């Protein structure tokens, strides 16, 4: 799995998908703003990674970043006033916004 760095290889993008960057950015911003402690973040992410390994998820970046999202959802509910109902309602609102918005227009929660 491991190999030396190839200095002649073209630079790789840092993130495979924008949501991966946004998830880590949100996590780091929440830690820096003091809403999550760095310790809680590491423990919660570690638990999500162990859970993924335990159910046989592939050892990929996709699995890693899904664990990041799970940890964010868990800590948002335990450390802030965001609830599961808030998450469900907001997710439905975003889906509705995407369905309603024509091509090429910015997707906004409220029309």
């Amino acid at each position: 799995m491991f190999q030396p760095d190839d200095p002649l290889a073209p630079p790789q993008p840092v993130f495979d998908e924008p949501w991966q960057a946004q998830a880590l950015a949100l996590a780091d911003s929440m830690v820096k703003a003091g809403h999550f402690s760095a310790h809680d973040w590491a423990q919660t992410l570690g638990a999500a990674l162990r859970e993924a390994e335990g159910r046989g998820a592939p050892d990929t970046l996709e699995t890693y970043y899904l664990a990041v999202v799970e940890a964010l959802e868990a800590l948002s509910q335990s450390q802030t006033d965001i609830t599961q109902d808030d998450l469900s309602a907001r997710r439905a609102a975003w889906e509705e916004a995407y369905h309603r918005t024509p091509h090429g227009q910015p997707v906004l929660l409220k029309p």
Partner: protein
Amino acid sequence: MATFDSENAARLHRELHSHLPSDPALRVKTLESLAVERGLVASETVDAWVEAYSEHIGPKRGAQVVARAWLDPAFRKRLLENANEALKEFDYQGSATGHLQAVENTDVQHNMVVCTLCSCYPFSILGMSPSWYKSAEYRARAVREPRQVLAEFGVELPDQVAVRVWDSTAELRYLVIPQRPAGTEGWDRDQLAAIVTRNSMIGTDRDLKGEGA
């Protein structure tokens, strides 16, 4: 019935053409929009982080630190004693990621860094961690069989060189100071920084290439 069918067809048509983002992308949008709405974070802060770590912040920062440590023995001493303090001499913002400890390779000790729990990493000076650093395999094997892992990275350690594996935490992260290679006498800081690889600062690379190598 006709009404239902046409409504259903119209709905299906809209969904087919709506380009709904992936499930994780929607979950992140959901979290971020709630966090911003409740004043927990500013959307500008999140956007600035994404831009900085996608484009600007990378291992060149750490390489500059290593090169200065090679050139300036007093700085090297300060770096090894208290890396957070020493790094204040560089204008590297965004380092609120716990305490940093610099560990130095020698002729008889090689240092290698892992986070067995998750992926703690000094990203304010090394940028985003490489994908292998986040893998379950590296997190497990770096501690269990470091010499084998190093061999796979192309590092053949002589028997007299001991390996010390440092397990990062949220509170304490590590930067490996590799050894300055021969053939770099008289080089300036930028020339030296150019040969310091990211992996050498994590400890999965050891022998850097100087002149004529």
